């Protein structure tokens, strides 16, 4: 066998055609998939060794065509043009073959070896149709592989096919010859114009690197990227003159614009292919998607059903995770006291028991909650309801200056993480919509804020009301996000929202394996974060609270000694300095320190509180953090709610800020607005709530 050869394979296809599922099967990785368009917004790489070849797969965001305008589509086009993959795998959703073939007709013009993958073949059979893949392969002269992405069918064949095509791909002439049948015949008129342009393009050294055929057709198609490429050439004027002449000629001849004519020819080609290849085998079975949609997208029932679905998520999460959360908290209590028994009292014991177990345990207690929440969310994502929710919410969202699609990033950051939510804003077409959405995404209650909310709500409300209060906090976060969006819309980001056009994927029953995988992957991220960042912050906070040591006064009992220690420590002193700022919103220095730690990662708030309360109390009657807060004299339900409101609004964590900075094109202006603006706003909101609460004596102890 020869030595390893590297093959670069690009996976492309329409949005929601199952690229990521196939990618996962090919590379044995667990990338995030979902049943709504725009799950993948960034290219992702994975590799596999197969028969002595080193195949690297690149999963690209879904596109409808090579002409692009939203940011995720630019990623795909730039990759195909600039990185020159060895083989392209075009993944086609077999259920809507014609529309998917439209993209294929464009990509095949790039003169790169291409393989068609007919995905979701089972759905086609269900619809009472059959696609003759051998006929398709013969007709186009291109290898066709049938797969069922989520059932691992046809993956081996695909790998064989890739290698076969790679070997052919080395011979450029052969590729050209092979794909000849697959290219659209535009008719003599367009062809002559294309040839004229081709001659001019071939003259320039810079442009001749790109496939001439594609470039000239793209030019006639009025493709903005092609026009950009041309403007760098030496003979721009010549090409542009010819381009205008050709366009006018086509317009005169057909009475239509060139791009319409070209699209028409492409669709004509796709249609004829579909007609020869697809056979009807039986009666179409009852379409479940239609039936559910008549209810779920009903004018009157749409929003109530959506609200009900959200409520079910919370009910499910809280009822099922409650016993497990209690079990976890018992375990950490036991673990803490056991470790305290093994290690002799002193600095080491304090560090491990108070610092690490107190901090990390406080975060990990909420692991079951996160687990169940992700499961419920994953179910809604995979079933295809998420895209409908965007459609339902468009009406509401557009009133607040947001786009219906903004809902998807917002949902992604709710219970997920704000960072992927910020990335997901790439699916929005207009810059303005994207910026507004990015500014409000951090207000959502992400998976890291969830433990903070669960802790405080758990401490002050009985089990009966917990889910309700939690639901209220979610509603509050949405209300804040929407009103901020409205405010931005009225002040600095004026303008109309872009129009809403979106494809609604068919419903399908999520597989248990898929759900568990998704749940596990996201929850594991949470645990990993607790293992690395939270341990570090916990230790830091422990050090800040434990040093310098207070003088031991014999007259004081243990509790008073602990309080004295807190007062003398670094953190206590810093807390004293910043306390005046936090006093009007009902917080002491310790909580202020926890909030500052929360800027690094939101889970750290719980971790820091755990450490602070572990130090501030004696070891003997160790309670769980929740009970400590519930019985502490300095806390009251009002202070808890104020704390949560501050948490909800103030500056997002460092990771989100970094992503935000990158995605806004390194703009310091927006960065300052996000970090400073949010913190000031949070303080004001908390101040108002706290003062009103004090005035009306609600929830005061």
């Amino acid at each position, binding site marked *: 066998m020869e030595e390893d050869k590297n093959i670069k394979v690009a996976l492309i296809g329409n949005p929601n055609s199952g690229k990521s599922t196939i990618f996962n099967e090919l590379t044995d990785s667990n990338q995030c998939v979902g049943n709504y368009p725009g799950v993948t917004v960034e290219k992702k790489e994975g590799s596999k060794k197969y028969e002595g070849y080193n195949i690297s797969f690149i999963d690209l965001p879904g596109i409808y065509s090579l*002409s692009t305008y939203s940011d995720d589509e630019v990623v795909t086009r730039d990759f195909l043009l600039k990185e020159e993959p060895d083989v392209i795998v075009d993944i086609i959703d077999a259920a809507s073959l014609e*529309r998917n073939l439209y993209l294929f007709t464009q990509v095949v013009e790039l003169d790169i070896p291409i393989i068609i993958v007919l995905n979701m073949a089972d759905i086609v059979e269900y619809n009472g149709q059959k696609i003759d893949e051998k006929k398709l392969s013969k007709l186009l002269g291109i290898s066709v592989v049938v797969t069922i992405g989520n059932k691992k069918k046809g993956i081996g064949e695909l790998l064989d096919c890739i290698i076969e095509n790679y070997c052919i791909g080395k011979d450029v002439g052969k590729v050209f010859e092979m794909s000849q049948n697959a290219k659209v015949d535009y008719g003599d008129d367009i062809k002559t114009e294309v040839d004229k342009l081709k001659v001019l393009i071939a003259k320039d050294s810079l442009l001749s690197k790109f496939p001439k055929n594609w470039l000239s057709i793209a030019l006639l198609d009025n493709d903005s990227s092609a026009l950009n490429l041309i403007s760098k050439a030496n003979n721009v004027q010549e090409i542009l003159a010819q381009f205008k002449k050709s366009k006018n000629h086509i317009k005169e001849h057909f009475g239509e614009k060139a791009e*319409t004519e070209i699209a028409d020819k492409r669709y004509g080609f796709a249609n004829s292919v579909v007609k020869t290849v697809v056979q009807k085998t039986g009666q179409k079975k009852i379409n479940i*998607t239609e039936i559910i949609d008549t209810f779920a*997208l009903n004018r009157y029932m749409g929003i109530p059903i959506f609200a009900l679905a959200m409520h079910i998520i919370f009910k499910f999460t809280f009822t099922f995770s409650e016993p497990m959360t209690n079990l976890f908290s018992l375990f950490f209590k036991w673990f803490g006291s056991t470790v305290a028994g093994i290690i002799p009292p002193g600095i080491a014991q304090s560090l491990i028991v108070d610092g690490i177990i107190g901090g990390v345990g406080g975060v990990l207690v909420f692991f079951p909650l996160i687990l169940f929440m992700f499961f419920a969310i994953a179910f809604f994502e995979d079933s295809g309801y998420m895209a409908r929710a965007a459609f339902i919410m*468009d009406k509401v969202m*557009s009133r607040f200056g947001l786009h219906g699609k903004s809902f998807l990033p917002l949902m992604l950051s709710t219970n997920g993480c704000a960072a992927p939510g910020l990335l997901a804003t790439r699916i929005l077409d207009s810059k303005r919509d994207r910026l507004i959405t990015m500014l409000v995404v951090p207000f959502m209650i992400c998976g890291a804020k969830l433990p903070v909310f669960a802790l405080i709500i758990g401490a002050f409300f009985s089990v009966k009301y917990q889910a309700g209060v939690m639901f209220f906090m979610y509603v509050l976060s949405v209300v804040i996000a929407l009103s901020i969006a409205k405010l931005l819309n009225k002040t600095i980001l004026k303008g109309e929202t872009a*129009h809403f*056009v979106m*494809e609604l994927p068919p419903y399908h029953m999520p597989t248990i394996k898929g759900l568990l995988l998704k749940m596990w992957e996201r929850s594991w991220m949470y645990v990993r974060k607790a293992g690395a960042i939270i341990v570090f912050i916990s230790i830091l906070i422990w050090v800040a609270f434990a040093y310098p040591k207070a003088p031991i006064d014999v007259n004081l009992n243990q509790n008073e000694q602990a309080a004295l220690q807190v007062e003398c420590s670094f953190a206590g002193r810093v807390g004293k300095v910043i306390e005046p700022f936090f006093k009007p919103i009902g917080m002491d220095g310790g909580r202020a320190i926890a909030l500052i730690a929360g800027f690094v990662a939101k889970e750290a708030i719980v971790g820091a509180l755990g450490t602070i309360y572990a130090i501030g109390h004696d070891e003997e009657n160790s309670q769980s953090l929740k009970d400590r807060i519930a019985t502490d004299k300095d806390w009251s339900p009002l202070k808890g709610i104020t704390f949560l409101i501050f948490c909800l609004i103030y500056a997002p964590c460092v990771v989100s800020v970094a992503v935000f900075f990158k995605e806004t094109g390194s703009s310091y202006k927006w960065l300052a607005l996000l970090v400073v603006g949010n913190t000031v706003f949070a303080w004001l909101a908390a101040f108002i709530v706290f003062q009103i609460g004090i005035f009306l004596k609600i929830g005061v102890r």
Partner: protein
Amino acid sequence: MEVIKRIAKSIYDYWRKRWIKAHFQRFKAFNRCLQHNSMAKLSSAVPGSYRFVVAYCDEKLGRRLLEMGFVPGEEITVITNTGAKGSIMIKIKESKIALSNKIADNILLKRK
């Protein structure tokens, strides 16, 4: 009790009448428009099958519509239309697409 029932019934009747009237009028207006001009707006379409004629919009959106399958002469099936300020769901080339009414206002249809 009797009074409440009566009030409820009268409110219900009023709304029902209005609803029927509005829908009937919409239906009539749409059909008349189709008859006289042989074309009508998608935003006022009653569920059924039609053919796409043209979309008046900026280049960006026009292109997106084009690649989603809005080619002149293509069959469009209107599934639901929630009226003004609402949205429209259509089926084109075997895929379901949701449009806001703002776009649908600029799309012309003709009889199948």
